[in-house]
C-alpha cells in the first residue's frame, strides 16, 4: 500500500506546503512562490496518474505495446505554460503594489489602507 500510494502522498504534502506558504506568509512574492508549489503538486498528481507500469513515453514506435496515458500529459503541458503567464501577471501586480504602497508585506499594506480611511 505504501508503494502504491506514495506518489499521491507526496503530492498531498507538497500541496499543503504550498497552501501553508500562501496562508501563513505575508510577503506577496513568497505567496506567489507558494502558489506555484501548489500548482506543481497538481501537475505531479496528474502525471503520476498517467504512468502505466512497463509503459513508455507516448510516442508511437515499432514493437512497443504499452504506452503511458497521453491525455494528462496534454492537459498539464498547456497548464504549465498558462501557469507561467498567470504567475507573471501576479508578479506584475506585486510590482505595482510596491510602487503604490512602498511595500509588499500584507500587514503594512493593510495599515496604510486603514490610515487612508
Amino acid at each position, binding site marked *: 500500500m505504501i508503494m502504491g500510494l506514495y506518489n499521491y502522498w507526496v503530492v498531498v504534502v507538497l*500541496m*499543503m506546503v504550498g497552501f501553508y506558504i500562501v496562508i501563513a506568509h505575508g510577503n506577496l512574492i513568497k505567496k506567489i512562490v507558494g502558489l506555484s508549489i501548489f500548482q506543481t503538486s497538481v501537475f505531479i498528481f496528474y502525471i*503520476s496518474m*498517467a504512468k502505466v507500469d512497463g509503459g513508455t513515453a507516448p510516442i*508511437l514506435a515499432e514493437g512497443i505495446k504499452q*504506452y503511458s496515458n497521453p491525455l494528462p500529459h496534454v492537459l498539464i503541458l498547456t497548464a504549465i505554460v498558462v501557469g*507561467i503567464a498567470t504567475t507573471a501577471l501576479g508578479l506584475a501586480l506585486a*510590482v505595482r503594489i510596491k510602487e503604490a504602497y512602498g511595500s509588499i*508585506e500584507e500587514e503594512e499594506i493593510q495599515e496604510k489602507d486603514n490610515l487612508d480611511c
Partner: protein
Amino acid sequence: MAFLVAVAIAIVRMKDLFAVIMLSGIYGLLSASFFVAMDAVDVAFTEASVGAGISTLLMLVAITMTGRTENPSRHKPLLALAVVTVTGSLLIYGTLDMPYFGLAQDPVHLHVAPRYINDSMQEVGVPNIVTSVLASYRAFDTFGEVVVIFTAGMGVLALLSVVRHPKDIAEIDSINKSMHEEHLILRIVAKMLIPFILLFALYVQFHGDYGPGGGFQAGVIFAAAIILYAMLFGMSTARRVINQSFIQMFAAIGVLLYGSVGVISLLNGKNFLDYSALSVDPVAGQHLGILLIELGVGFTVTAVMVIIFFNFAGRRKDQQNKEKNEP
C-alpha cells in the same frame, strides 16, 4: 520525490527571497526530472524551460524592484499549521480509496486514452500522441489556452508598460556604452550560443510531430534566447533588435493564425478546427493543420514571454532612473 519535499520545506523556512527563488528554480528542475521518470517527456521539456528557466528569471527581476528580504510575520503560524494539517490528513484519507499507482487497468486508462493510442496514427498520422491530442483532438482547448496566455501578456502590458520619452532613451544609451566593457566573456560566449539556441527552438517547433516538443516549448526556448540577449547586451540594444510594437503584433498574429485555421475548416464545411478540411487527403490536412496551429502557438508564446520580460525589465530601468534624478 523526497528531494522535492525537502526543497519545498526549505522554501518555507527561508527569509531571503533571493534564496527562495533559487530554490524554486531547483524545485522546477527536480520536478522536470520526475516527469521524465514518469514518461511524460513533453511535459518535462516544458517544465524544465518554464519552471527552472523563465519563471525563476521573472521572479528575480521582480524582487529587484520589490526588495529581497521578507519581514518576519507577527501573527501566529499555529492556526495556519492546524488548517493545513487537517486538510492534508483529509486528502490523504481520500487517497486511500485511489487505485494504486501504475496499474494498467486504472479507470483513467480505460476511457478515451486507448482511442488516442490505437487510432491516432490512422486518423492524424503523427507519431507523438501528445502532439496529436494537443493540436488535433483537443485543439479547441489549446486555442483557449493560447488566448489565456495572450490575455495574460496584455494584462502585464497594461499593468507595467511605460511611455518612454526620447530623453530617457538617450540616457539609457549612455549607460549602455559605459558598461560595454563589462561582461566581455559572458557576451562572447552568449553570442556563440544564441544562434544555436534559436536553431534548437526551431527544431523543437517543427519536430514536435515526431519527438517531444511543439509550439509551447519552442516558444519558451525562443523567448529564452531573446531574453539572454537582452540581459547581456542591455535593454535598449535588444529593443532596437526587436521592436516593441512588432512583437506585440506577433502575439496577436499567433492567436489569429490559430483562429483562422479553425475558420477555414468551418468555411470548407467541416467543424471548427477540423483539419481534414484543409486538404483533399485527410491525413495530409491534419499534418498541415497541426503545423499551422503549432506555429501560431509558438508565435504567441514567444511574443508574450518577451513582452512580459521587456516590460518588467523596462520598468526597473525607469525606477532606477527616477531614483537617480530625485535625490
